[in-house]
């Protein structure tokens, strides 16, 4: 298989009060098309930074080094792809995310027939195999070459639907706007699409919901709307960043089931960011464990859950308070 997404030695630092604070310290990972990858970690692990970097949503001023390469198979690519960024400003002088629709590694020529080179592909040939050699080609951003675009190619669902939805715009229009922007639809077509999407995310009474405002919906309903907007343009990649953390347990289970169904129906690739290892395990094929900016373990879900290699992963598993095992709390207690 060829990697859809290939991240190499990604280093990201934020500037806070003039001090450089590292958020990611050299993370490398590959994702296959159609895969469901969970990225888990605690506060400050860098999991959200990684999600934002992949989506091209990092705050300007972030120091970025390393590569994020996308390779979109031809059959799935309605557009040409380049950078996973909608923010040209995030590319400071150091070369930073040198992303292109990278050439496949030399060992996998057979996949070539379904692969599609990016329109910024003069370097693609040169890129082949470079990552293994260590000398990674750096490219500046090429916005005019139609970068991989958030909304169109990547759907992003945030933790707090109240802050990702416009409070003074009817939700039907917010969803239709995404479809109209990316799919060349008329408003009438886009509204019809929005209604279909509201049905797909199982919002009750989609006809009247089109005209509702976010404050008229519950937290779970708002997250359904945010998901509808995220998938409105038919993205190939869905990133959910703690998308269920602000919801109660019952609504969380409903939203996870919704994400699972939509990803399966649309054949999307899923990146699911969570602090909850049990929740991640219920959804993902593979789990990546981040700690303090480093990827400390990556494996199949069953391997991570049953045979974790790292003590930290085991500690996360042991700290889970589920209904299926005795809680490992010290009830006799030592003062902590």
């Amino acid at each position, binding site marked *: 298989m060829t990697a859809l997404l290939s991240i190499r030695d990604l280093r990201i630092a934020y500037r806070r009060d003039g001090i450089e604070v590292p958020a990611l310290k050299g993370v490398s990972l590959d994702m296959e098309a159609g895969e469901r990858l969970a990225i888990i970690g*605690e506060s400050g692990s860098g999991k959200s930074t990684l999600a934002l970097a992949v989506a091209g949503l990092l705050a300007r001023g972030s120091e970025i080094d390393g590569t994020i390469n996308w390779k979109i198979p031809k059959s799935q690519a309605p557009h040409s792809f380049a950078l996973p960024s909608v923010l040209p400003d995030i590319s400071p002088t150091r070369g930073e995310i040198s992303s292109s629709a990278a050439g496949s590694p030399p060992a996998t020529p057979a996949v070539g027939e379904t692969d599609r080179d990016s329109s910024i592909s003069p370097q693609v040939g040169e890129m082949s195999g470079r990552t293994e050699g260590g000398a990674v080609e750096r490219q500046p951003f090429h916005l005019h070459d139609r970068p991989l675009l958030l909304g169109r190619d990547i759907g992003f669902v945030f933790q707090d639907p109240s802050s990702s939805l416009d409070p003074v715009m009817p939700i039907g229009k917010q969803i239709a706007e995404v479809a109209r922007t990316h799919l060349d639809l008329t408003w009438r077509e886009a509204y019809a699409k929005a209604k279909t999407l509201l049905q797909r995310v199982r919002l009750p009474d989609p006809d009247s919901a089109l005209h509702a405002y976010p404050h008229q919906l519950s937290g779970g309903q708002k997250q359904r709307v945010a998901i509808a907007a995220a998938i409105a343009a038919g993205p190939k990649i869905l990133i959910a960043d703690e998308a269920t953390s602000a919801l*109660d*347990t019952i609504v969380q289970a409903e939203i996870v089931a919704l994400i699972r169904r939509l990803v399966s129906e649309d054949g999307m690739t899923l990146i699911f960011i969570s602090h909850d290892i049990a929740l991640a395990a219920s959804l993902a094929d593979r789990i990546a464990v981040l700690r303090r900016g480093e990827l400390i373990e990556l494996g199949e879900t069953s391997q991570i859950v049953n045979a974790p290699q790292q003590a930290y992963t085991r500690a996360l*598993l042991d700290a889970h308070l589920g209904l299926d095992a005795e809680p490992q709390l010290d009830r006799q207690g030592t*003062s902590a």
Partner: protein
Amino acid sequence: MSVLAVTNLTKRYHRGGKPFAAVDEVSFDVGPAETLALAGPSGSGKSTIARLVLRLIEPDAGRIDFEGANFLALSGAALRARRARLQMVFQDPLAAFNPRATVARVLDDPLRIHGIAPRSERPHRIAALLERVGLDTGLAARAIHEISGGQRQRVAIARAIATRPSLIVLDEAVSALDVSVRGQILELLLDLQRQERIAYLFISHDLGVIRAVADRVVILDAGRIAESGDARAVIADPQSAVGKALVAAMPKLIRNRP
């Protein structure tokens, strides 16, 4: 005798011009050194009950007895004095404190306001409180915004126990913490309960946490009690629809332990 007895407690609000009961004739009690959990989905009324018990809001009907006295009848100095015995810890300690205050200031306030220790003794008391909750005494000079979330929640617990309460209302007190920190804070709470005989009204949407710490559980749905009983028994075999839904919604982590 129970520390807290709540009888037919009712609180109504208006939503879309229509009255609805956020809390509807709810009755329960909490014994000394007991942990009673309130569980339920969003909007089930559990946080409204917390605010009623703390008298941050007043009920429309019902009775609250705290330490054997009619808590709703108290006012002025008598209410303030009794409040020392009834403390609270919320989900977000950053929102519960003045972020610019130092840890020492946060712990000095209850000691001063409730006349627990004269000024000269307070630094010593503050150091003892910090040690009691597992914090380095050197943290006293730090600002609240400078310390970690787990440390902040320990300071919130230190502040709550400063007045030697008989009951602490814990409203989603561990929900925002990292799992590794959460376990330590729950262990601290269990230890304090055993040592100081403090009762907890433990509000959470997470049945896994409730199962780990609570003696009994009350499951709420739309302001009413759906079922209640021994926490492990109810969670193992819920009878109400909402109880079943809460259990079914918990993520399962099936591990093949060696």
